[in-house]
């Protein structure tokens, strides 16, 4: 589990122990290591999480997933939560 605070100007990715399962409203997140189950409750958030993989930083991921400007704060909060839960992690490349 990451102890570092979430930093939106850094690159992130889905943690290797985590799998996403698409659902009509978003996705189910399963962490094979912690056996924790959570849900991404919008498809847009699922897009953002997928976009992280390619994006130079979290801000860019929001833009490439076309998150409306007014919702950036909310989505960054969600990513911060995912980072502290270990669902996403800093990509060291």
């Amino acid at each position, binding site marked *: 589990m990451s102890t570092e605070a979430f930093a939106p100007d850094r690159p992130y990715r889905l943690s290797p122990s985590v799998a996403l399962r698409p659902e009509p409203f978003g996705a189910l*997140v399963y962490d094979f290591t912690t*056996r*924790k*189950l*959570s*849900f*991404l*409750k*919008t498809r847009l*958030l699922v897009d953002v999480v997928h976009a992280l993989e390619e994006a130079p930083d979290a801000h860019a991921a929001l833009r490439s997933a076309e998150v409306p400007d007014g919702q950036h704060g*909310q*989505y960054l*909060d*969600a990513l*911060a*939560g*995912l980072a*502290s*839960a270990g669902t996403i992690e800093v990509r060291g490349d």
Partner: protein
Amino acid sequence: MSENHTVTTAEADIEEDLLVEEVSIDGMCGVY
């Protein structure tokens, strides 16, 4: 462990607005 509805996003007090919700893996009726 039997927590769910755990608020994963920071400071989100309105449940409707949560983008992420955690669920207990034991949180549904399985075997006894």
